[in-house]
């Protein structure tokens, strides 16, 4: 019975790359062989392994195969040690949830109670319960990762950022300026890998870290490929790639680290938005930097004004000693 559920889930939701869910699915798969009292420690070990595999960024297909085929108890030599460590991590993570959140999550994931009957019990609606479950899972992932790191966030901004990433809520990510925080905060940057690995199935967004010259080429090739999907003409694709080349070069020249995020837009019409952010020294006088002829490196100073001419919308926000964010948009021509 349990095995059937596992198979059904794996088959029906190949993209259900939910860390907690995957863990619990494995627990379900092994439930017949595990003593009831052992469930929690087993879940802990499994979660650890799932996280480890995500850190290694194994491709999803292999993970899926693994999920279906290999439901054995992991038999790592240092299992006892890990078990103790992870038990503590999960216990600590669960502490951050309210009793009600915890009960609801376990009822849903472990006992398979559906959202409708949960909603009846809780005096809520199925939709609200599902949304609450998503938020709970998002927080649990974050707390679990923090506990594994044996650390508390460095700043007040970390938790909101991590939870926004964990839940895949893009609007929230913008509100808390998650992209910038990841550039500034090593802890969150590290933790964002397993969190974002879940979201890799998003095919309308592309994130390219910019550190060296070669990344500039990757960025412009990446944007060209992605933007081609919304119907830009060949000329527009080259125009966009050229603008991306300019802004990513600025990152390499002025900042140690940065990234280019490309996002396809649908409303009000098809388009592409590019955000280039860095943790460089910042631009003291943005107005001047947007003037032709202004040059701070051995070049023609055409980076920003040139890119602005190529795009439909262009905005620069810069803070000295903190970094620069360039946001630019190109819309598809109609017809």
């Amino acid at each position: 019975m349990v095995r059937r559920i596992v198979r059904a889930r794996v088959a029906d939701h190949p993209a259900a790359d939910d860390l907690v869910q995957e863990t619990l699915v494995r627990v379900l798969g092994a439930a017949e062989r595990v003593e009831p009292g052992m469930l929690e420690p087993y879940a802990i070990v499994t979660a650890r392994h799932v996280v480890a595999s995500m850190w290694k960024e194994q491709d999803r297909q292999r993970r899926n195969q693994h999920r279906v085929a290999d439901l054995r108890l992991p038999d790592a030599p240092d299992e006892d040690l890990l078990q103790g460590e992870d038990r503590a991590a999960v216990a600590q993570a669960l502490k951050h949830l309210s009793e009600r959140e915890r009960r609801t999550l376990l009822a849903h994931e472990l006992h398979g109670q559906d959202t409708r009957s949960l909603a009846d019990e809780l005096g809520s609606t199925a939709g609200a319960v599902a949304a609450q479950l998503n938020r709970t899972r998002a927080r649990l992932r974050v707390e679990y990762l923090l506990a594994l790191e044996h650390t508390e966030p460095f700043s007040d901004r970390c938790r909101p950022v991590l939870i926004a990433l964990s839940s895949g809520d893009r609007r929230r990510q913008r509100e808390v300026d998650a992209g910038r925080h990841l550039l500034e905060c090593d802890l969150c940057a590290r933790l964002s890998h397993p969190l974002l690995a879940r979201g890799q199935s998003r095919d309308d967004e592309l994130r390219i870290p910019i550190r060296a010259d070669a990344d500039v080429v990757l960025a412009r090739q990446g944007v060209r490929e992605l933007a081609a999907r919304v119907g830009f003409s060949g000329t527009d694709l080259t125009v966009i790639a050229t603008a991306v080349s300019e802004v990513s070069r600025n990152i390499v020249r002025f900042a140690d680290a940065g990234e280019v995020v490309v996002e396809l837009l649908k409303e009000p019409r098809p388009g592409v938005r590019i955000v280039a952010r860095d943790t460089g020294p910042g631009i003291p006088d943005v107005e001047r930097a947007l003037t032709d002829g202004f040059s701070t490196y051995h070049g023609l100073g055409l980076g920003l004004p040139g890119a602005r001419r190529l795009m439909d919308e262009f905005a620069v926000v810069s803070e000295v000693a903190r970094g620069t964010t360039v946001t630019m948009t190109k819309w598809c021509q109609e017809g």
Partner: protein
Amino acid sequence: MATGPALVSILRQGPYLIASIHTALDDSQLIRFQKDLIDQIGRYRSRGVIIDVAALDVLDSFGSRTLRNIAEMARLRGALTVIVGIQPDVAFAMVSLGMGTGSVHAALDLEEGLEYLDSRLPAKDVGRAVSAPG
């Protein structure tokens, strides 16, 4: 260093050098290309240089500037430069960006580039080009 196919090739044809860029180059690769090309112009006392950029996906401010620099350095070494193979969309993006190749001459393709050099260089040089082994 590179083990894959060459990113660029520089071939000697009589008094000319024909430099072809085979793939998108990043800034450091462009700088290296510039250095190699200028070195060879000096070594072979070339009279004309054709740079084939048909494979470039983008000619942004740095790329355009590098081509200009090469042409200027080549001129100081006595060689005339012509850029060939700029794609229509690349040309469009270059001028939208506010870049051009300045006074550097551009031609449609290799054939046109050779014709341009032949027409601009003294007949004895061109004669050498024609009689040189292809």
